[in-house]
């Protein structure tokens, strides 16, 4: 089966071609075609996963064709199947398929229906390439491809100025990251002489620490862009302009985690340059708390989730930074389940409210009390929220807890502290969202009320599937903590961080504690304390949300009055967009206009000036002719004038002038004969 890995991206490609070229023919069937293709891909993925999980595993390269050769550089299009890519394939193909099916319902009746599914399949194609590539350049192809699809899908409703702006912003910010990625790629090639994983990792132990750190940091710039970390996270909240399935698939479950995947994939290089890891850990932690704090006060349901995604990605990078690579990938997987579910649930709510005024469809202040009208959506969202908040035994608990424990036991106490604070905020804002949307009195516009009903099965079935995964997706592969199945499975693909001996120690402790806990006894070890603390934080956050938004609904307003500055700061996202606009975008605009002026006036001016000078020289040499020139020079400005005058001097068009000059010539010749 593994031999047929090339089939995986082939099906979405077929979907792209069918829907893209025959869009007008397939019309309403486009969704089915695309879903079928995603489903076929998923089948192949499942077949491969079965072999990988039940069989001996290992690492398999499936060559397809040689792409670029130039001197000593050789890059081929070939696919790598190993435990890490198997996990990623499962996530991408699985969540991707579910969201394809969901989109059939959600996008029904949109004028761009075939176009939407073309883009969606194109995204699948690129994302699969990204995770299956066996070398960095092919990964970069997928990397750029998903960026392109993100651009196309965010700007899907292109007639909306804000949507096309958001798409453009996403692409350009991503490109900034890509520039770093590319530089890292060049550095890898220059230092190791290859771009394929196998050879790079073989050469990695010989890399000097500064070189490895440089590679790591450059690649991380790429990851910052794609995975929305500080300072390049600004595009992700804006990306919510796209259709909701897109937000779920691209901006929650798959694409944004590409950076995490890349760092995990490059772990053999990263462990050679611990400096880069420290930076990653810190950036991750800062991003986690920074965006979680913004998420506390947002009113747009999708924006809350967007900031939550940024924050959770911060958690994943924290894991990478502290050397807990497997935990990071684990969190990536569980996050794909519950965050995808949260977005799809939000989509379901928005879908139900599509008769409300446009400005209110996504605003939680105009929702409330939807629980009874949409029970399936409600319960699914609750499961996802519990998973996100980190309440055992839901999926998020296992992975998030591993990350925090990893940070603590590797001695990154600051990172751990920030992460724990972010976890508290996470639990708070997600339940704030649940309570504002589904509980309390209904604040929906009166005209829209009678139209609210549960979404069709094509949308709720995917919700249920993801809800089940959000419940069991953590405990099955992740129990006991730090020693679960997923760690064993991923171990061959990931490097172990040296200098993180404390981590191993911590792992041992936690393992023992968990076993002890499972047996119903054992207290006092640090591991147990951490777990208890994490649970307490999650429940505390939920309780706080409950108190503020259900019991004492005046509390938020009170706090708002008490801390107006802080509230405005958070509501306006720390004014980061405005700062970027003022410090980067505007200067570039000014620079480009100034350069254009420079080009017109100085560079071109020099050219025209030299022609002006030439004309002047010819005028001086033609001074005797000046008397006879018709009309002489009237001081017309403009360069055309100068050129035409140049020709006027030379050619008056008067035969007699020419003859006169000829006569002068004869005169000179005779003079020369006379006076030689």
């Amino acid at each position, binding site marked *: 089966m593994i031999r047929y890995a090339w089939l995986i991206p082939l099906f979405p490609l077929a979907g792209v071609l069918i829907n893209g070229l025959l869009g007008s023919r397939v019309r309403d069937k486009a969704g089915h075609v695309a879903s079928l293709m995603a489903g076929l891909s998923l089948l192949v993925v499942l077949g491969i996963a079965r072999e990988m999980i039940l069989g001996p595993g290992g690492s398999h390269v499936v060559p397809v064709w040689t792409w670029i050769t130039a001197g000593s550089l050789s890059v081929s299009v070939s696919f790598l199947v190993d435990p890490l890519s198997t996990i990623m394939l499962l996530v991408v193909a699985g969540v991707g398929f579910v969201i394809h099916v969901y989109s059939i319902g959600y996008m029904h009746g949109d004028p761009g229906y075939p176009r939407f599914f073309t883009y969606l399949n194109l995204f699948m194609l690129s994302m699969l390439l990204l995770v299956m590539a066996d070398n960095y350049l092919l990964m970069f192809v997928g990397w750029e491809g998903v960026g392109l699809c993100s651009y196309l899908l965010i700007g899907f409703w292109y007639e909306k100025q804000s949507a096309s702006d958001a798409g453009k912003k996403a692409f350009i910010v991503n490109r900034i990251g890509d520039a770093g990625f590319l530089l890292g790629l060049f550095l890898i090639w220059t230092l190791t002489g290859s771009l394929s994983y196998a050879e790079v990792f073989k050469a990695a132990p010989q890399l000097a620490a500064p070189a490895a750190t440089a590679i790591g940091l450059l690649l991380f710039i790429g990851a910052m862009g794609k995975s929305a970390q500080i300072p390049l996270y600004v595009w992700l909240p804006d990306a919510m302009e796209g259709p909701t399935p897109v937000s779920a698939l691209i901006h929650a479950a798959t694409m944004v985690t590409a950076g995490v995947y890349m760092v995990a994939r490059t772990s053999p290089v990263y462990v050679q340059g611990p400096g880069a890891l420290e930076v990653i850990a810190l950036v991750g932690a800062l991003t986690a708390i920074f965006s979680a704090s913004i998420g506390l006060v947002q009113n747009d349901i999708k924006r809350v989730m967007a900031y939550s995604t940024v924050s959770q990605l911060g958690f994943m990078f924290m894991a990478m930074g502290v050397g807990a690579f497997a935990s990071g990938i684990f969190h990536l997987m569980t996050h794909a389940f519950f965050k995808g579910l949260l977005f799809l649930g939000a989509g379901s709510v928005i879908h139900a409210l599509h008769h409300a005024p446009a400005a209110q469809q996504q605003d939680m202040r105009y929702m409330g009390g939807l629980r009874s009208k949409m029970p399936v959506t409600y319960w699914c969202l609750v499961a996802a929220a519990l998973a996100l908040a980190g309440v055992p035994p839901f999926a998020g608990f296992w992975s998030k807890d591993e990350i925090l424990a990893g940070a603590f036991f590797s001695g990154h106490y600051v990172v751990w502290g920030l992460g724990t604070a972010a976890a508290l905020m996470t639990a708070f804002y997600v339940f704030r969202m649940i309570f504002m949307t589904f509980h309390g009195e209904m604040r929906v516009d009166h005209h829209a009320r009678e139209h609210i009903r549960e979404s069709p099965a094509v949308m709720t079935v995917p919700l249920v599937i993801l809800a089940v995964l959000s419940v069991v997706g953590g405990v099955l592969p992740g129990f006991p903590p730090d020693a679960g199945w997923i760690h064993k499975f991923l171990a061959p693909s990931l490097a172990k961080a040296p200098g993180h001996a404390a981590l191993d120690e911590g792992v041992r402790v936690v393992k023992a504690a968990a076993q002890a806990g499972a047996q119903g006894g054992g207290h006092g070890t640090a591991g147990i304390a951490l777990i208890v603390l994490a649970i307490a934080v999650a429940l505390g956050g939920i309780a706080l949300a409950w108190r503020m938004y259900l019991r004492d609904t005046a509390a938020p307003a009170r706090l708002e009055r008490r801390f107006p500055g802080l509230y405005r700061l958070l509501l306006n996202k720390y004014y980061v967009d405005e700062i970027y606009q003022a410090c980067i975008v505007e200067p570039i605009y000014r620079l480009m206009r100034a350069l254009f002026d420079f080009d017109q006036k100085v560079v071109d001016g020099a050219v025209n000036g030299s022609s002006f000078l030439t004309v002047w020289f010819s005028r001086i040499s033609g001074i005797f002719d000046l008397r006879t020139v*018709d009309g002489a020079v009237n001081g017309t400005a403009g360069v055309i004038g100068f050129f035409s005058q140049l020709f006027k001097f030379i050619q008056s*068009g*008067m*035969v007699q002038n020419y*003859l006169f000059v000829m006569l002068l010539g004869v005169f000179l010749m005779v003079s020369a004969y006379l006076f030689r």
Partner: protein
Amino acid sequence: MVPLTHYLALGAILFLIGAAGVLMRRNAIMILLSIELMLNSVNITFVGFARQWADLTGQVFAIFVIAVAACEAAVGLAILISLNRDRQMMNVDEINLLKW
């Protein structure tokens, strides 16, 4: 026998009179007439040289010059007639069709 220099001087004087006419007059016909004068001044020199060196080539060339003069007159006058007919122009300094 008339010295060669006399022929040459006469030719030069006529040539310069003709050239001055070409350069100074505005009337196109006057210019053509002056050109005829210049051509004839050349003929005088040719004949002078033929006489001096007892060589008929000079006279032969004079015949050719006359032939060319006839051509020139025919074409030049044709141009003048058509110009005069189309544009009512006689003066050369108003004709600047050569100007781009």
